[in-house]
Structures are given as C-alpha cells and as structure tokens.
C-alpha cells in the first residue's frame, strides 16, 4: 500500500500555514502506511551560490556539532546550521561534492537526505504522527510540500528506505506502488555511476530520474521515459523547486486524487486526506488519468 500527499499553494498568503494545512493530510494516510513517514518541504530558500542540505544519521542521538566544525574548517566556507530533532539542516556556500566528500570521510553514518536551495527532506520510521511531531511539521512554513506514509512491501523498514527520495538538487520523489524490474535497473544505473544506499525499489526510480535528468532530459521528458522503462505499479509525486508533478502508470491500479481551488492544488491517495483543507467543498476534484503528467509550477 502506502499513502502519498502533496500540497502546492497558489496563494502566498497561506505560506505561513503550510505545515498546519498539510499535517492532517499526512496523518489521514496513516492507515495506508504506518511503518514510516516523511515529507519534503520547500521554503526558506538560500541565496544564489549557497546550498542547503538536510542530514540524518543512522546512529540514534548523533551529535552534528563536531561534523559542522570540521566542514567549516576543511572547506573554508561560510556555514550556518540548525538541528531539527534527529535531522540537521546545513546552509553553506561550499560545493555539494566537497561537502559530500567530507561527510563520507568523517561521518559515514550520516546520510544526505536532500540538497538544493529550497528543499528539506525529513523522514523516519514510526507512525506519521510521530514523524510530524518529531520535526514540528505543523509549525513549518513554505510554498509546497509532498509527503509519504509507508507500508513496506519490497524492502526493509529503515530511515533510509523511507520516502521521499532525493533525485537531485531540489528534486524528490514519493511513490505508491511497487516496481518489478528494480533489481536489473539498479545494476544498469550503477554502471552509469548512480549510487544506491538501500534495496528499495523507489530509490531505483529516484536514481533513474536522477540519471535521465543528468542526461539532459527535462522533468517531463524524464517522466515520459520512466513510463517506458519502469515496470510495475506506481503513482508518483515529484517535488521540484517551483512546484510538483503527479504521474500514474498506464494501468493506474494505484489510486490518486487531485483537488484545485484558487488557493491551492492538492493531491492524495484518497479523498479523505483532502477533506480537512479549507474550501474543499467547492474545489474541483478529479482523478488523474493514467500515463498522463500533471505539473504545477509557479512562474519565476
């Protein structure tokens, strides 16, 4: 199973309430995914030339302070960071590759959840309620957010196996469904230099999109290719810096529902996750067509 939810605000006046509007959507999908949960929130953008990384450690109670000091010293960069429960959000003017290299050398248990100017991916094992409380989701601000509640079928329940998965700077993926060709595809993508940390099928889909985007595909082209190359069931929600996209496989067994008002666009696996949104009674509500891409992005 698994539940996926997304909320994109068209009305900037609601940005202070993004977390509060989104939290009940995520919690409504607890029945579909009680194993683990996560979300990717977009907001609090860093300026050009800077990047923001979200880090989590596989060691419980890991202290990020030493690592941050080492990063600053070794890279000679400006660095600003804060801790949000088990995660650390790091803002720096260093290069992504340089930061990753230092982390890999000094703190192999630390995982980079997301990199970009806007995105923060926060996720972990446990009920959606535990995850949303751990990271104070209800107080978060931003322009858009996608989330996931997991009922694992293809691989172990771990923090790293939780969704969303990063697919590049400011890009991420959540998935409801299962892929049947992930083993072979993972081998193929490894030959193209894509690295994997888990046995998870969605990580392969994320790696696939990362690879296509590196090949020069637009997001739309990458998703078009995914319809040909990914075998299995999927409803995907893809977060981008400026918005989000939704696509279902051609058979469309996995559910999805979309709602739009003047204030927002929302998606969920089931309508009950949308029922707490303001003005939902008058929203345009519809089911996305199979093998059809739906993209909402704010113009720059």
């Amino acid at each position, binding site marked *: 199973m698994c539940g996926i939810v997304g909320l994109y605000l068209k009305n900037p006046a609601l940005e202070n309430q993004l977390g509060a509007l989104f939290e009940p959507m995520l919690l409504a999908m607890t029945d579909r995914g009680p194993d683990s949960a996560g979300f990717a929130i977009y907001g609090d953008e860093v300026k050009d030339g800077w990047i923001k990384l979200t880090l989590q450690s596989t060691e419980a109670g890991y202290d990020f302070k030493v690592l941050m000091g080492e990063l600053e010293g070794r890279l000679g960069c400006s660095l600003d960071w804060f801790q949000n429960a088990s995660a650390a959000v790091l803002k720096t003017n260093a290069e992504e590759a340089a930061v990753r290299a230092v982390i890999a050398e000094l703190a192999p248990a630390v995982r980079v959840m997301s990199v970009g100017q806007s995105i923060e991916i926060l996720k972990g094992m446990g009920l959606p309620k535990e995850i949303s409380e751990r990271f104070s989701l209800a107080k978060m601000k931003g322009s858009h957010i996608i989330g996931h509640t997991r009922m694992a079928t293809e691989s172990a329940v771990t923090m790293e196996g939780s969704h969303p998965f990063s697919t590049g700077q400011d890009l991420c993926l959540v998935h409801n469904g299962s892929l049947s060709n992930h083993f072979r595809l993972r081998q193929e993508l490894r030959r193209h230099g894509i690295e994997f940390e888990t046995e998870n099928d969605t990580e392969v889909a994320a790696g696939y999109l990362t690879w296509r985007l590196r090949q020069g595909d637009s997001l739309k082209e990458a998703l078009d290719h995914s319809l040909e190359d990914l075998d299995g069931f999927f409803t995907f929600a893809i977060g981008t810096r400026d918005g989000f996209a939704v696509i279902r496989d051609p058979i469309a067994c996995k559910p999805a529902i979309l709602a739009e008002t003047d204030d927002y666009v929302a998606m969920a696996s*089931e309508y*009950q996750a949308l029922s707490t949104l303001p003005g939902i009674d008058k929203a345009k509500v519809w089911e996305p067509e199979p093998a059809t891409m739906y993209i909402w992005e704010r113009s720059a």
Partner: protein
Amino acid sequence: MKTIDLSSATVRDLNQALHDQTKTLTEREWVVSNPGGKHNLAVGLNEALSVEIDGHAGYYCAGMNQKASVTIHGNVGVGVAENMMSGMVRIKGSASQAAGATAHGGLLVIEGDAGARCGISMKGVDIVVGGSIGHMSCFMGQAGRLVVCGDAGDALGDSLYETRIYVKGTVKSLGSDCMEKDMRPEHLEELAELLNRAGFDEDPASFKRYGSARQLYNFKVDNASAY
C-alpha cells in the same frame, strides 16, 4: 428520517444502525452527514432503506447492497456498489475505478464519470453512466447491461461474456473479443428503459451497441503452441 453525523459517529456505528433495520425495521429514511471520504459507508445493507450520503465517500461505498437505495451527493472512491445484488445506488458526482465490480443485480447510476475498470466482471447489474468511463471497463463482463452516455477508454469489454454495452460517444479501443453489433428494436427498447430508469434524457438511437464476438469461449487447438 434519521441522521447520522460521521464527524462524531463512527463508520461502524452507521453500518450497525443500518444492519439493525434488517432485524427490526423502525426507520426507512437515513441521512449520512459529513462523510469526509470515509470508506465502507452503507455496506452490506439488506433492507429496503433509503440512504442519502451528503458529501464525498471513500472506497466500497454501498458494497454488497441488497434492496436498499443509496444516493451519494458527491464523488466516490474505488469499488462503489461492488458485488451489489439488488436495489439502487446513485452517485451524483464521479466514481473512481472498479465501480460496480462483480455486481449481480440492481441498478448503479453514475451521473458524472467513472474511472478505469467500470463494471469489471459484472454479473447481472445494470450500470448507467452519465459521463465517460476509463480503460478496461466491463473486463470479463458476464451479464447485465452497461450504458455510457459519454466516451469509453481503451480495451472496452475485453474478454467479454454476455454483458451488453451501449456507448453514445467514442470508444478509444475495443478489448479482445469485443465487437460492435447491430442495434435491433429490442435493444433500442431495453436501452430506452434503462435511460428512463436512470433519469437521463438521451436518444437511444444515438448509441452504438457492443458485445461479445464469442471467439474466446472455446479453446482453439491451433493456439496450443502458445501455452
């Protein structure tokens, strides 16, 4: 008339109250308020009740219905009226996939659109859709009638047995062993009756009929090498 408000009562409270009417009938008319997209509303009814659901419902709404008349003033999720035996289910909005799956009898009316696999393995139910239906609809349909006032998606009537399908708009593609058939007077007559019962003001003569080509009924020895 009795109202059950699902912002305070549970789905189990609702279904139990409706099932209790089979033992001792005290109230025929029911209203369900604040359904909030919850699943399994008004399932397994077995009495001639009238149930009005005032909003959107989730999965399997009015499943296994017998005798009751259930109206949903909103959209419904997967598998509305699945395995219905008799009675009537009317959706004022649109339905998700597998509407009327395996249903044996009764009338299912969807005033909006229906998603994929509408009427999958239908076994005697009549389904009338005011809008369009999605792909693989009426897959393995065995008996009953499916009427579509809009368009049909890919692979309509794949592996069809004896369900009769009437479509007014375009059919994106026909599934294996489904073919267009002549509209004879008895078909116009049954279609007019179905449209009338569903409350749609459409001209039966503007529909086309589709049915089984009956080529998959028996194993063909020439195909043995494929297995």
